[in-house]
């Protein structure tokens, strides 16, 4: 058995808004093996970001983690004090956000922002932090690091900004990295470069990676295993290859069918139906209002995640009775 670096069990994170309780993450469980690249996919609003923020325990107000376990190398992070958590953030677990233009502070230069992260976790003399900052910027492929580190975020292009954000995340060599749609806001040509960089760095720093995206194309390239989320719950967990070829959950099938494939000249198809309201989510299986295979039980009983073959988990009442279409991986 390989060791798990991360073990999430029954995680629930709710937002207590004036309109009602938003059950953004509602009983999510999955794990991450050491050095693995795991994909976290699902439509917008399915709870991907909130899951990552919950692991770091930085869910913004009025959100609150109300139940579950988040074991990191065997220790439950939800049991730790705020002070202990602060030490883990950035040094053990780091995150890269979707939009580098908003995730970098506009009023401090790059050196200051990277230096503050280093100094938050290590006591090093000033000359040494400067050397470290330059090294980091070189590692993420920023030319003329020594002059550019004195510049401000708005002086960098989108791709370069994301490289700076990556450098910040890697400043203290974390062992677990969340990449939350790191290329969604970038040009297509830049996307590939940044993804390659992430892949290289993951190997170089021996990291475990959780890749968050709703782009099935990226997920196929970047990951070896996938967790599919729908409306705050897990639908299916499988090896990337299995999931693409033999999806067992109707929602996964719909996601795959929506992938735009250049070679097939297929345009982006949107999954029919609406993303459910998370204040009063559909009863039973949350996907039932949009599912072609829904039966009466689906409206009444919540399907549990079961292992239907080694390392392939599905939460669907009907999985044995339906046959679904996958995508042949090129």
């Amino acid at each position: 058995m390989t060791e798990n670096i991360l073990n999430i069990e029954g995680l629930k994170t709710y937002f207590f808004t004036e309109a009602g309780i938003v059950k953004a993450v509602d009983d999510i469980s999955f794990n991450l093996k050491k050095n693995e690249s795991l994909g976290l996919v699902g439509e917008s609003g399915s709870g991907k970001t909130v899951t990552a923020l919950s692991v770091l325990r930085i869910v913004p107000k009025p959100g609150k983690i109300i139940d579950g376990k988040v074991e990191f190398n065997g220790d439950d992070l939800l049991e730790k004090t705020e002070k202990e958590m602060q030490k883990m953030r950035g040094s053990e677990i780091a995150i890269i956000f979707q939009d580098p233009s908003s995730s970098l502070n506009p009023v401090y230069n790059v050196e200051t922002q990277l230096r503050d992260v280093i100094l938050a976790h290590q006591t090093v003399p000033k000359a040494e932090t400067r050397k470290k900052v330059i090294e980091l910027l070189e590692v993420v492929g920023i030319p003329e690091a020594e002059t550019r580190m004195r510049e401000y975020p708005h002086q960098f292009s989108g791709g370069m900004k994301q490289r700076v954000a990556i450098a910040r995340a890697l400043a203290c060599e974390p062992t677990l990295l969340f990449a939350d749609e790191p290329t969604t806001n970038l040009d297509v040509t830049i996307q590939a470069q940044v993804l390659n960089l992430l892949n290289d760095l993951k190997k170089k720093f021996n990291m475990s990676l959780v890749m968050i995206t709703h782009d099935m194309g990226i997920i196929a390239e970047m990951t070896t295993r996938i967790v599919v989320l729908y409306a705050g719950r897990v639908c299916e967990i499988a090896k990337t290859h299995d999931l693409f070829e033999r999806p067992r959950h109707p929602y996964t099938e719909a996601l795959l069918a929506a992938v735009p494939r250049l070679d097939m000249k297929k345009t982006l198809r949107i999954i029919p139906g609406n993303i459910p309201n998370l204040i009063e989510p559909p009863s039973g299986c949350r996907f039932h209002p949009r599912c072609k295979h829904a039966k009466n039980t689906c409206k009444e009983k919540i399907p549990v995640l079961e292992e239907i073959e080694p390392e392939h988990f599905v939460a669907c009442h009907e999985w044995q009775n339906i046959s679904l279409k996958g995508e042949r991986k090129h």
Partner: protein
Amino acid sequence: MSSGRSITRSFSSLLGSAMFRYIVRRLLYMIPVFLGISIISFFVMYAAGDPLSIIRIGKPDITQETIESLKIYYGLDKPVPIQYLNWLTNLLQGNFGKSLRGGRPVNLLIGSWAWETVKLQLISILLAFAISIPIGINSAKKQYSKQDVAVTSISLFGVSMPTFWLGIILIIIFSYQLGLLPSAGSRGAPYLWWDNPILDQIAHLIMPVAVLVYVMLAQNIRLIRANMLEILRSDYVLAARASGLSERKVIYKYALRNAIGPVITYLGISLGMIIAGAPMTEYVFSWPGLGRRYVTAAMELDFPVVMGITMIITMMTLIANLMIDIAYVYIDPRIRLR
């Protein structure tokens, strides 16, 4: 030797810097603004009435002859444009003319008044900032908590409360009823606990400063709270937390610098009024500053004094605004000098 050379070098690099060119350009722009304001105020005022007619009220038996000779003495017999040119020529030589009430040089009067106003305002502004920043931040951090609701409603009260009324209430309570504080002026005879020159000045400052701070505080807190609320929800604050920075660093370094910009802008916009000495407050506390004298001089139709104060206020406002724009460049690197 070497330090002398490096000073020369840094001086020449200053001369060539974008900031230096910017400041020179801004100072040059002030000339037309300054002239424009002086022309408008001069003509509006001299069209408003005959400054000597008011003398008749005090001295009903004054002769027409005396008035005519006074007119000639003050140069009021000439056409208004000529009077303006005379006034301007004198001003360029640093001479604001003589007061129509008593004939004392305006320069002399304004000098001490301006100092009193600057002292009062500077202390109030600094105090208002020092108090409003932590309160605004805390209020935003604990949005909708009891403390936040209290602060928000008290500051709404502050925005809408007339300063005149607040000043009078303070005087009634602290001067007349409790006898704890002097009610008028900026200094006076040693008395009670303020029996040395320094305590005396402090005692006189307390109530006017309290009123000015209270008024600014309300506005400042509301601005800082609103900005902070937005910034605390931003990605860069979340990212700073995610990097393991301490809460103090996240708030006071990463968030605050972004929140302070709009407050400085607001200060710039309201500077005119602040420098004018918040005349009401000065009036209520008989503060010997520009603001109160402005009101008195206008009522007495003492045109040279009114013009002098107008020009001083204009200049202070223009220079303070320039200083704020420069400060802004240092606070927010995205702002480019144009």
